[in-house]
């Protein structure tokens, strides 16, 4: 997995790329959570993520919960089809 972060005023757009599984989920977590913790509005661009398992979904759930606590905006944008399918299965948890 690779990533880049765009900064637009108080917004941070995190572009994730590749496969997100248990091996790399901490890297994703350590990229996203500090941005939310710092009070930024965070968008996650998932257009180039071709595989995501429960570890990746867990990072998204944690991010959403933290953004609710911090009262900041958190959203997923340009969700790829493979991720959309997994999100659909996990929708009960999101």
């Amino acid at each position: 997995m690779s990533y880049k972060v765009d900064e637009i005023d108080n917004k941070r757009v995190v572009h994730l790329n590749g496969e997100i599984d248990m091996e790399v989920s901490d890297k994703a977590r350590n990229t996203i959570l500090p941005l939310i913790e710092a009070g930024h509005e965070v968008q996650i661009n998932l257009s180039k993520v071709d595989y995501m398992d429960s570890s990746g979904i867990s990072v998204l759930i944690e991010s959403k919960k933290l953004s609710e606590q911090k009262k900041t905006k958190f959203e997923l944008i340009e969700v790829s089809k493979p991720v959309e399918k997994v999100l659909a299965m996990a929708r009960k948890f999101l």
Partner: protein
Amino acid sequence: MSETAQSNHTEKKDFLVRSSSLKDVRTFCREVFEKLQIEQNLKDELVLAIAEAAQNIVKHAYKDDPKTDDKMVVQISCKDNKLQIGFYDMGTPVDPNKVKHREIDNVKPGGLGTFFIQEIMDAVEFKDGKKPWINHLVLTKQL
């Protein structure tokens, strides 16, 4: 070993019990499902279920031994359009009664993998591991 798609076919491969092996597990499954000519949508779901089960071995059966050199075996069999995926490991014995996905209204992360496996597969069964194996998990799906 392999024959034509959806007829009798069995393949197995061993993997180091590490999170870094999960990508190799997925690659192996995709290759086998290509041979079985399983359509893309189902293939993606099956790969996810298998990867989650392998992840559970790394995460739970080897929780106290993350640097193990032990291997786990994944065996994919297809007979009469019934797909059976076996997992063998030598980690901590799994208590099937404790393997549950969490409650729907509990939004804490974790436990999702088991939920995905149960959503995707028709049956999930823990069998007695025959030596040298400790755990033997079998996932089944009618094609």
